[in-house]
Structure formats: structure tokens, C-alpha cells
């Protein structure tokens, strides 16, 4: 899909979509397919599916230093490097340079991101779960934050639609806390994971289960897009998939949008403001800076979709000041930029499995096991120490080097030993829900500007008491499950020094949905309460975080909001035509 280089500054668009990631791709596809002439703005460079995945077929020996992150990368991408993995050679080129794209931290915040067409849909973790009514009703029941203005029945058909289009593999379990999905056939658990699963079902009476992760990979048939076929089990997803086997905007939604002929994609377009018209009480377009020429340009449209990522969309709204909105567009409530949530993790347990030495596996599975939430669901699952719950991801695999290597000093025997696989390791890594808290926030810093003269974001957020109390249980239960399975050297861990908000790369909540404009930014259709032709459909809209990986939910809400916007657009068009008839 080619990016337009022609002059489009005088063109009138029906819709503008800001961002091309998980949510922007879906907004573009849905709006274009409904017939709206849509301008899609991306702040970074273009990435063409397959052609721009330079490392997709490289083996470790094809890199000058293996796959390790170089010192230069670690120095320039020093905040991205806090993850410990995104700066490695095969995929570091998809993550931002922290010196070129600075932000400020009143409290440590790990903002991990990529500026290019496709955004983080290229590098995401691909685990895909639905929220349930247990999630949508929790805030109201417990008096936390504000109530979601939607329930599961409102979003369920949109989950269906998204899942059928992108392809998600996994196993349905019929759990109220983890609704069934439209799933392709599941990937396999390996023999050690099957053993843990069997032991858990024998030993626990609180409903906890082990299943294979539900992941956005094609495991049977094909899916629409640019030649999307089945997963080849290479586990090199984050480099871009030449088979289009996992979902990305680049392979799936953007080609669909492009095929309509209604999309204009403009790269290197840093949106910094939504233009508000006081008379119409609507937005009329956006202002951008061309990242390369630094030229400032305005684009006009009837509908604006902000899909720039939770923090960037909030930043654009905060910068969109007018006499009507002195604190930023749609920010009458003062909630814009507040209630940042993420999933807290880096807590769990690991151990070693004996008795499977003659077993191995073929393939590199881009997926792991999943243990759905089993806390605070009523009866013997309730805990008084904390609200909400958590799930585990993890898996078992053999280490690449035999333990013999540690027992041998040197010589031919050592050389033989290093060619054999090592022991079976198993790990459980918990991902916990974070409660919304208005003191967890980001705001604009007008004293420190980036190279485009734009204010930078300052973060001031951390996990709270509920999350810390939950972590104790996350660690204890992981240990308990591995011990019950009979694994040896079981150790729990809670990496306190690595715990910071953002590291889960599920940052969300900065423009929450709600029923009341006094306490929320968006309504039940993802529209800004007080400027209804602006929709925000990235993670910013999240009213609570659940403990499920959130991208699928962003896609479903985006598709639903785009449908709503297109209906409104057509209604207004008909209305205008009727008005014209009245006049003539």
C-alpha cells in the first residue's frame, strides 16, 4: 500500500484516523468499508508487509553480534531497554529512540513504543482474551472509579466480528470470567504442561484450570489481508511475519482499508491538535507537523478517530486547548490523562521437571500456557486481602544447554555435552488487574519540548495497595501449583526492582468511558462527551483494566465505534440533503 505524496492539504475528508496500530487499523478498515473518504495519519515511517521485515529470515549467525542488544542501541534506547528484550538485534529497529523521543518521569514509567505504520500491532504479544461482565460490572459493584457505560452484550457481537476477521487460536472453556470466543484450533501443550494441567485438576477445587493461550495466529485455513496463511512455528513474530500468520495492521486491516479505494495514508505526520469549532461545537480537523520537513499543516474532516495509543491520544487532547476547553478538548471532568492503568507482572514461580528427559518437542511455539483468573469469583475463590484477580501465562521448555556443562571443565566430553538439550524448566508469570486511581496520571510539560517544538509527556504513576496485596497471592499460588505438580527446585519470585508501570506495555485509561461527563471523558460509543465527532478508541477509553491482555478489546470497541460514527455520518448527510431541499 503506497503512501500518498500528492498535495492533499486542500482535500476534504469524511474522516481522519490518527494512528495505524491495533486500533487505528481497525478504524481505517471499518470507516473506509462504510464508504467514508478517510485520511489515515501516522507519525512514523511506512512499513510494507513482508518487504520491510529485514530480519524475518535471519538466523542468529546472520547478525554480527548474534541477537544481543548492542551498546549503542542500549544507550540510545535506554528506556525501551528496560524490557530487556525489545532492544535485541532482530527487532530493535521497530522501537523508538529515547533520545529523539523523550518523556519525563516524576515516578518511573516505562513507555515502550514503535513509531511506524502498524505501530505495536507489529510487535505485540498476540494473546487475545475477552473481557466479561465480571469486569464490566466490577467498578460499580465495588465503588471503584466509575461504571463502564457498556456491558458484555453490547460488545460481544464486535468481539465475534473482530475474531472472525483476524483469526485467534485457542480453546473455549465456558467460563463466566473468560467468555468463549470464535476460535481456530488450539496449539498444543507439551508433555510437561499436560502433566501440570492434570495435577491441577486433581488437586484444586476452586475452579482453576490450565489451557493453551489464545493467540492471534492462524492455525487452520487462511484469513483476509495480504496472503495471510498458517503459523509456521518459527517464533520470530516480533520481527514481522512473512506468512502474515499473526494479526498486524500491516497484513490485515490496512490492506482491507486500502482495497476500498477510500483510504489516503500519510506518514511522518505528527498530530498535535484537534481543531475545535466553537460555533458548531464540533471538531473540524487536526493540525500536524510533518516529522521530516517540520511544516505545519491542517487537515479537515467531519469525523476524527484518535487511535494514537493511550498516552499519545491523551496528549493530543490535552494540547487541543480553546476558550471552550482551556484544560484540553473534552476535559471538563479533569479526568483526561488520569487513571493510568497497566498490568502488573514480573511475579510468579519457576521450577524444574524431572522424569521427561527422553521427551522433546518439534517447532518453536509462539504461545504458552494460560491459567485464567480464579480469584474473587464467589464462594471459596474470594479473598479479603485484595479486589479483582490475575491470570498466569508461562510454559515449559528444555534449556538449550545440558546441566552436564556445569559439571565438566573442558575437553572433548564438554564438547559432546554442549550439543545436548538441558533440563525441562517450567515457569508461571502472573498478570494482575490494576485499579483505576486518579493520582496515577500523565500531563504535558511545556518546559521540555521535543525536536518538533511540542511539549513532552510527564508521567506520575505507580501501582497501589491493592496490586501489592495481590502480588503476594500471585507468588504464593504459583509456587503452590508447581509444587503440587511435583516439580523440583520450585522458587517464587517478585522482581520488585523491575516493577514499574508501563512495563506490561498495556498502558491504558487516560480518557475513560463513563455515563457522566462530570467524571469521564468518553461516552458509551467512545465519543468525547462534549465533542461528539471525536472518538477515542485506543487503550485510553478503558474504565477498568481487567487482567486480560487488552488489544482484542481495543479492536472490538474500535469496530463498534466506527460503525456508530459511520451511521451518524450518513444520518447527518441525509439531514443536510433534506435541509438543502427545504431551502431550494
Amino acid at each position: 500500500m503506497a503512501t500518498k505524496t500528492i498535495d492533499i492539504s486542500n482535500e476534504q475528508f469524511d474522516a481522519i484516523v490518527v494512528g495505524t496500530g491495533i486500533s487505528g487499523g481497525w478504524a481505517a478498515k471499518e470507516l473506509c468499508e462504510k464508504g467514508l473518504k478517510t485520511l489515515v495519519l501516522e507519525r512514523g515511517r511506512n512499513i510494507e508487509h513482508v518487504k520491510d521485515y529485514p530480519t524475518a529470515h535471519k538466523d542468529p549467525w546472520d547478525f554480527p553480534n548474534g541477537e544481543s542488544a548492542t551498546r549503542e542501541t542500549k544507550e540510545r534506547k535506554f528506556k525501551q531497554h528496560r524490557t530487556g528484550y525489545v532492544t535485541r538485534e532482530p527487532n530493535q529497529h521497530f522501537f523508538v529512540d529515547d533520545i529523539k523521543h523523550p518523556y519525563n518521569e516524576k515516578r518511573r514509567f516505562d513507555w515502550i513504543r514503535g513509531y511506524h505504520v502498524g505501530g505495536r500491532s507489529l510487535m505485540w504479544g498476540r494473546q487475545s482474551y475477552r473481557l466479561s461482565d465480571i469486569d464490566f460490572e466490577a467498578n460499580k459493584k465495588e465503588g471503584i472509579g466509575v461504571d463502564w457505560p457498556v456491558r458484555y452484550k453490547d460488545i460481544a457481537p464486535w468481539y465475534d466480528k473482530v475474531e472472525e476477521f483476524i483469526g485467534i487460536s485457542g480453546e473455549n472453556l465456558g467460563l463466566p470470567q473468560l467468555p468463549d470466543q470464535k476460535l481456530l484450533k488450539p496449539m498444543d501443550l507439551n508433555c510437561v504442561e499436560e502433566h501440570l494441567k492434570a495435577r491441577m485438576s486433581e488437586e484444586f477445587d476452586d475452579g482453576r484450570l490450565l489451557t493453551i493461550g489464545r493467540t492471534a495466529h492462524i492455525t487452520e485455513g487462511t484469513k483476509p489481508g495480504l496472503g495471510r496463511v498458517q503459523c509456521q512455528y518459527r517464533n520470530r513474530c516480533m520481527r514481522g511475519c512473512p506468512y502474515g500468520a499473526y494479526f498486524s495492521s500491516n497484513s490485515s486491516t490496512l490492506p482491507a482499508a486500502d482495497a476500498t479505494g477510500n483510504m489516503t495514508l500519510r506518514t511522518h505526520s505528527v498530530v498535535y491538535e484537534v481543531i475545535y469549532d466553537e460555533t458548531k461545537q464540533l471538531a473540524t480537523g487536526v493540525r500536524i507537523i510533518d516529522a521530516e520537513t517540520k511544516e505545519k499543516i491542517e487537515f479537515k474532516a467531519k469525523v476524527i478517530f484518535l487511535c494514537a495509543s493511550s498516552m499519545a491520544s491523551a496528549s493530543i487532547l490535552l494540547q487541543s486547548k480553546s476558550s471552550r476547553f482551556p484544560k484540553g478538548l473534552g476535559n471538563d471532568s479533569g479526568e483526561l490523562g488520569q487513571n493510568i492503568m497497566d498490568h502488573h507482572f514480573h511475579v510468579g514461580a519457576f521450577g524444574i521437571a524431572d522424569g521427561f528427559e527422553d521427551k522433546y518437542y518439534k517447532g518453536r511455539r509462539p504461545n504458552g500456557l494460560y491459567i485464567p483468573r480464579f480469584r474473587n469469583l464467589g464462594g471459596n475463590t474470594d479473598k479479603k486481602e485484595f479486589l479483582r484477580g490475575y491470570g498466569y501465562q508461562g510454559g515449559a521448555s528444555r534449556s538449550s544447554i545440558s546441566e552436564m556443562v556445569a559439571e565438566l571443565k573442558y575437553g572433548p566430553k564438554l564438547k559432546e555435552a554442549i550439543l545436548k538439550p538441558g533440563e525441562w524448566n517450567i515457569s508461571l508469570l502472573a498478570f494482575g488487574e490494576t485499579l483505576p486511581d486518579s493520582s496515577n496520571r500523565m500531563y504535558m510539560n511545556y518546559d521540555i519540548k521535543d525536536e518538533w517544538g511540542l511539549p513532552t509527556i510527564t508521567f506520575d504513576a505507580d501501582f497501589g495497595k491493592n496490586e501489592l496485596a495481590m502480588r503476594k497471592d500471585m507468588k504464593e499460588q504459583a509456587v503452590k501449583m508447581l509444587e503440587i505438580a511435583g516439580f523440583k527446585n520450585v522458587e517464587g519470585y517478585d522482581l520488585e526492582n523491575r516493577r514499574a508501570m508501563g512495563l506490561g506495555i498495556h498502558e491504558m485509561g487516560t480518557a475513560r468511558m463513563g455515563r457522566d461527563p462530570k467524571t469521564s471523558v468518553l461516552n458509551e460509543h467512545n465519543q468525547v462527551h462534549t465533542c461528539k465527532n471525536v472518538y477515542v478508541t485506543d487503550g485510553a477509553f478503558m474504565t477498568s483494566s481487567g487482567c486480560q491482555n487488552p488489544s482484542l478489546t481495543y479492536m472490538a470497541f474500535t469496530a463498534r465505534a466506527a460503525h456508530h460514527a459511520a451511521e451518524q455520518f450518513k444520518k447527518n448527510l441525509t439531514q443536510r440533503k433534506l435541509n438543502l431541499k427545504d431551502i431550494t
Partner: protein
Amino acid sequence: MKRRDAIKRMGYAAGFVVITPTILGILNSCTTEVAKWTPKFLMPEQAQFLIKLVNVFLPKTSLPSATDVNVPEFIDRYVDEIFTIEDQQIFKAAFSNTMTKISMHQGLEILDEVEDFQIKAFLDEHLMVKDEVDIEREANPDFKGKTTSEFLNTIKTMTIQAYLTNEKIGEDVLAYEPIPGAYYCGDLKSLTDGKSWSLD
């Protein structure tokens, strides 16, 4: 110095990999082609010692030796391009210190002449294997640098990783499957004849 102890379990989880595809023949190596290798980080005498040391760890058998697959060049480049400046300084200091120690240990005036049996005698005394404890470290728990044993074990680990991620080893010796097409469990013997997969 070190002693056997059940307290300490050693880990081999270091996450580095790689190498160049060219064949490098140096000194003791049995390859006939002699390519030129100008170390980027190491001093020439360190490079010469490293060539001998890595071939003690992984000598030539029916399979290539460490130098046959460019392990010294890998280590030199890795320290130069991947290590932080601080880690480079620690590495450099530990290297010099270790070379001094082995010269004294073997009563050599010039380390250039060190023989394999002398290196082995030094490794027997200092290289830690499973369940051994580093006495030098116990005496100086806050020492920021690497003890002799830690340094030797680092070189051993780097040698193994470099060897295993070499193209020849990865594609011809280990079980290599760039496009598996499926994932399932099975018997080690029938899947890979007991070998590790080269890609994980």
C-alpha cells in the same frame, strides 16, 4: 581459588549468541586457511592467549575446534560492541590479572609460550564446576570486578555460546529447522537423535 561446596548452583543462562560465517584459522588451529584477524578490543597478547584457552575448552575432535569456528573473534567483537564501558573495564582488568596469575602459577616469563597442559593445570585450580564456591569471592564479597574463577567461567560460557551459534555448528551439527511448520511433543531420540535444536 575455589573449593567444592553444595551451596552454589552455577547458571549457564547467559543470553548471547553468534559469529561470522568466514573460517578463521589461527595458530594451533588445524585449518589450513589463515585469515587475518585484527582484534578490536583485546591486546595482541590477550588474543593469543584466548586462542589457546578456547581450544582447551573445545578442542578439535571429529567436530571443529573453537578456533575453527572463530570463537576468539566472536568474543573480542562481543566485548567491543555489546559490553557496557564499565563491563569492558572489568573484563580488561580481569583478563590482565588472570594472565599475570597463570604466568606466576606456571613460572613463565612470557605467556606466549604457555602450553595446553599448563593452562589445564591452572583451570583445574581455578575453574568452578557445579557446587563449587569461589574462595576469592567469599573473601571479597563487595569486589566490583571479576575474580579469576569468575573470569574463567565467563570465558567458558562465552566460548560455548559462540560455538553453538556458529553457522556451521547451527546448521550441520545441531538439529536445525528454520521453518518447523508445526509444534508437538515427541521422543528426543526420534526428533533430533538426542541433540539440541540450534534455534530456540
